């Protein structure tokens, strides 16, 4: 009974073992590396599936084990453990499934890279960390894995370190997400202090917050904690205003963009919000903020995607926008909507990235203006890409339609403004995807790629499987069958069918989706409206959108420059006041006379004076405070 669930701790062990073996093997075992990496994620995937099937049974209860005492500080004990809930098991399948697909795909995509074994090692380490993040039974353990996936992401974005842009992107991603991480850490510290018995495990958090948290902490503190958790999610999931790292992260190898920066790690923020939903939902203000940040990000990033020309950047901004939908859904109180979209998005966005990788592999450019007419030459890529694009654009019966519809229906019921925003974002999504698709696959080749041919089977088979999933994954929750939300919330009672609003949302969402695709077709295939139309009418707006509304530039002016300035000021102090003496020493040729002269030039006295002034200031500030009042 529940055998597989109880052995869920084995799931992360497989990729971890693969990682350790890959490190030990060294660089020469290339084929072994591919097999090991894939075998590790295959084993994890199979076990995750078994766990999921077990959880589908009628009376599955959440299983958690915390037998291992990890740290004892005073009267506080932190136990190490894992927990399997329905949400967890769903995430496990998504992570291990996409990881398996990417492992197999990389055998083709990366086969000529000399650091292939290192690549597989990093991917295995990432898979391990991501599984650990999902399985963690307390928020501190989650945080540790949260940081680990961040480190893996850093390593993989900068994998091609020879490019300066890759190095810069890796560093940017690491530092920007760290701002969010700091927020999460503060939230954990606050929880540690306010929770009864310093409990940090999710069960206790559920117990405290779910029952209206009767007087455990003030509503102000609850809101503060919820907002700090939201900050963590904003950093990791690329929400406005911390979204700037995600488009740059596309400097990493494309399979990595699919695995980390589309399907799994960036969804960790959404997962965090779902996991701590009891805290977030205890504060009305935090819920509102979550919903509006998500909604704003969805429309904001979708408009930027309209003006990009790099295929991966379009998909990256699209990811930011779709994550915005998920965050918005959670802010509107629909965890199942957010997780449902996370689930379908993982498949179709991974598919789109793998398709993009296949294209880049064939034509060696990422600029869609240089592509064109690829549909005839790369049939499998074109068909699977079309399925992914239709799913993303929200066209029935593909999976994205159902999940987006679930979110829009909730929005229509809860907040009409956000419904309109979501609808507008859906329109933009359909438009930029049709632009992307038609420019790449339709028409005539715009530059001579004579030798373009379809990618190898090792790359197309994962794409076909993901395409199949993108078609069917949506049917686990439809307006007339609320299976997923019932299963996720652990209750048999199926959510009330939305009726009128559901049909309205559905019609509207199909309408804008179809309109977006039609307009795209007019623009880029029929060319009845010139594609230079926007550039001619509103050149500055177009440029602003193309540059992502200059958010990076704003950061440079508001944050980076002042910080650099502070650093420089201190460095100048260090250089001239303190380091002055050091430079004056010159080389090892010191005549005794010069030595004596230098000693009396006052620098050491400066230090002494600084110490004395420091002491006096300290006294004046701290003691003076007493006598002042």
């Amino acid at each position, binding site marked *: 009974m529940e055998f597989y669930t109880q052995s869920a701790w084995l799931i992360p062990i497989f990729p971890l073992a693969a990682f350790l073996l890959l490190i030990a093997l060294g660089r020469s075992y290339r084929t072994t590396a591919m097999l090991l990496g894939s075998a590790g994620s295959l084993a994890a995937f199979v076990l995750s599936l078994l766990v999921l099937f077990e959880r589908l049974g009628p009376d599955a209860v959440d299983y958690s084990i915390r037998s291992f005492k990890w740290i004892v500080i*005073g009267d506080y004990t932190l136990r190490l453990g894992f927990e399997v809930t329905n949400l967890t098991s769903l995430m496990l399948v998504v992570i291990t499934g996409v990881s398996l697909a990417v492992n197999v795909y990389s055998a083709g995509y990366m086969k000529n890279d000399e650091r292939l074994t290192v690549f597989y090692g990093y991917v295995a380490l990432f898979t391990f960390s991501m599984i650990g993040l999902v399985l963690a039974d307390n928020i501190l353990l989650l945080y540790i894995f949260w940081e680990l996936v961040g480190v893996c992401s850093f390593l993989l974005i900068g994998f091609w370190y020879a490019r300066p842009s890759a190095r810069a992107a890796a560093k940017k991603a690491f530092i920007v997400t760290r701002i969010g991480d700091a927020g999460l850490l503060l939230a954990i510290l606050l929880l540690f202090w306010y929770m009864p018995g310093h409990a940090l495990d999710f069960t206790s958090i559920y117990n405290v917050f779910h029952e209206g948290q009767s007087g455990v902490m003030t509503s102000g503190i609850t809101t503060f904690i919820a907002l700090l958790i939201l900050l963590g999610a904003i950093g990791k999931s690329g929400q406005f205003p911390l979204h700037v790292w995600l488009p740059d992260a596309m400097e990493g190898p494309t399979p990595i963009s699919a695995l980390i920066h589309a399907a799994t790690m960036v969804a960790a923020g959404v997962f965090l919000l779902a996991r701590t939903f009891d805290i977030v939902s205890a504060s009305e203000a935090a819920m509102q903020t979550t919903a509006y940040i998500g909604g704003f990000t969805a429309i904001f990033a979708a408009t930027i995607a309209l003006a990009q020309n790099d295929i991966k950047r379009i998909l990256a901004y699209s990811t930011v926008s779709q994550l915005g939908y998920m965050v918005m859904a959670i802010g509107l109180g629909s965890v199942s909507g957010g997780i449902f979209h996370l689930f379908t998005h993982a498949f179709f966005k991974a598919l789109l990235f793998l398709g993009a990788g296949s294209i880049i592999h064939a034509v060696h450019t990422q600029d869609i203006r240089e592509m064109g007419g690829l549909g005839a030459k790369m049939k499998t890529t074109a068909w699977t890409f079309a399925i992914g694009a239709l799913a993303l654009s929200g066209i029935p019966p593909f999976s994205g339609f159902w999940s987006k519809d679930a979110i829009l229906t909730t929005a229509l019921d809860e907040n009409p403004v956000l419904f309109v925003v979501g609808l507008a974002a859906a329109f933009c999504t359909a438009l930029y995807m049709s632009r992307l698709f038609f420019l790449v696959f339709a028409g005539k080749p715009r530059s001579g790629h004579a030798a373009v041919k379809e990618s190898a089977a090792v790359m197309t088979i994962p794409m076909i499987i993901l395409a199949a999933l993108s078609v069917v994954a949506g049917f686990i929750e439809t307006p007339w069958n609320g299976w997923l939300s019932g299963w996720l919330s652990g209750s048999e009672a199926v959510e009330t069918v939305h009726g009128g609003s559901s049909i309205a949302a559905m019609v509207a969402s199909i309408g804008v989706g179809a309109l977006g695709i039609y307009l795209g077709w007019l623009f880029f295939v029929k060319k009845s409206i010139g594609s230079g139309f926007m550039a001619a009418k509103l050149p500055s707006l177009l440029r602003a959108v193309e540059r992502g509304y200059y958010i990076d530039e704003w950061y440079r002016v508001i944050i980076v420059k002042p910080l650099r300035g502070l650093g420089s000021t*201190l460095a100048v102090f*260090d250089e001239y006041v303190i380091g002055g003496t050091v430079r004056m020493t010159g080389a090892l040729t010191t005549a005794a006379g010069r030595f004596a002269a*230098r000693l009396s030039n006052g620098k050491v006295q400066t230090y002494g004076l600084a*110490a004395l002034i420091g002491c006096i200031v300290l*006294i004046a*500030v*701290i003691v003076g405070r007493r006598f002042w009042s």
Partner: protein
Amino acid sequence: MYEGVSFLPLTWPDMLYMAPELFLAAVFLLLVVADLLLPQKVSRLSIGWMTVAGLLGAAGFVVYRLIDLQGSGREVGQVIELLGASYVVDQFANLLKLVFLAGTALVALMALGSVKQDKDITDRAELFYLLLPAAIGAMIMASSGNLVTLYIGLELLSITSYVLVALRRRSSKSAEAAFKYVVIGGISSAFILFGMSYLYGLTGSVDLGDFRTALPEVMTSYPALMYAGFFFLIAGFAIKIAAAPFHAWAPDVYQGAPTPVSAFLAVVSKGAALAAVLRILYNSAFFISGGGGGGVKPVGNDVYLALLVLAAAAMLAGTTAALRQRQMKRLLALSGVANAGYLLVPIGLNFTTVHSSNVSEFIFYLIVYLLMTIGAFAVLTVISQAAGHEELKGFSGLYYRAPWTSAAMVVFILSLAGLPVSGGFFAKLFILMGAASAKAYWLVAIMVISSVISYYFYFAIVRQMFMRSSSEEESEIRVSAPTGIVIWLCAGATVALGLMPGLLMDWIQAIFTIRGDLLIGLG
């Protein structure tokens, strides 16, 4: 000298309690004589190995005493107090002595591995055996129960350090650094003595045990004098600790000194001064602060606040100044300034009913700090030998020239930056949790902000190692055996503490009690 106190002579059983210090002193004298008598052609490295052996022997005595104290099932307050409670052997002292001895032994090993490359050092033997009196000084500071003993330990440590800094005799930078260190050290001593004299004037005693009763009595009458006493004391020690704004000397001195000596200053000297502050304040300011119970006691609270302000200043100044630093020893010095800030937090937070694990947090952080700092300095000796300089760019492409050493360096940097899975993560986490439970949220915010800023320069090093391929095909870097031992001991322990922090934390908490092992003269 003062009335009513007769000096108690040192008896033979007392000598046994001081075995670690006396043993080290004996080894020191032996090595000095050996250095004089041994013919020139005998390698002085043998003196280095004997230094390490001596340090380990002394550590053995300390471990014996520690187990003996633990096993004796003693009553609270039954501490070994020698010479009229001026010298105390309790578990606080024992734990810190182990830290200092381990740190000094690692430094000596590092010196064994790197001394040959430094042509500026003329007398290699001195680099080894002078570490011994310095270590004795640090041990005396950890064990002292009155201000005079404390001061003797401090000066023994300081004066030996001045000589150690100056050992690169052919380098004018070394001489300059030593000169600066002497002058600044003198100022520091003056501050400390000035502060001590006020405390003596107020209480009529130099015994820490007497402060507990005397200070509360005179507090309301002479608050100004008491402020002056405490603040000058703190300022003096802040210079030794290199907490901002008293840190200006540190980058210069670290840069000029031989690298193993820089590591010694960063770890042992800093640790000893912090231990002294902790011991003094818990025996004095604590009883005139809010934590001491009864009445409004502003002086003690202000003293603790001053420490927290120093801590915050050190963290911010250390990390921001390091942002533009490209000289590795200066960078590590500034990183040490920021870490001094962290170490001051558990001392300055004071002991309260809701937060009583300050001292174990402090010791845990000190141990982790020792491992990662000495490890990083050891890697630096390897790099600077290969590159011929100590700039950041010496690390470029290290991964391709010495993959294992660079892996160890990654461990040290993860730990310095406070990321899992490393000891540094938990060390910082414990202190953060302590600060959160004491509700010092402003301090928590500063700690988090400063560590976020610090990622910037720590990861610049990682980036250099992995992400910049060296222009020409360069040869493998060889690591000498003693340096390798230091690097791998430190890296292994750092990772082990990242996986199993509980083991060390439990152990510290099992053998240490505040009443029994920190307060003086309860017996």
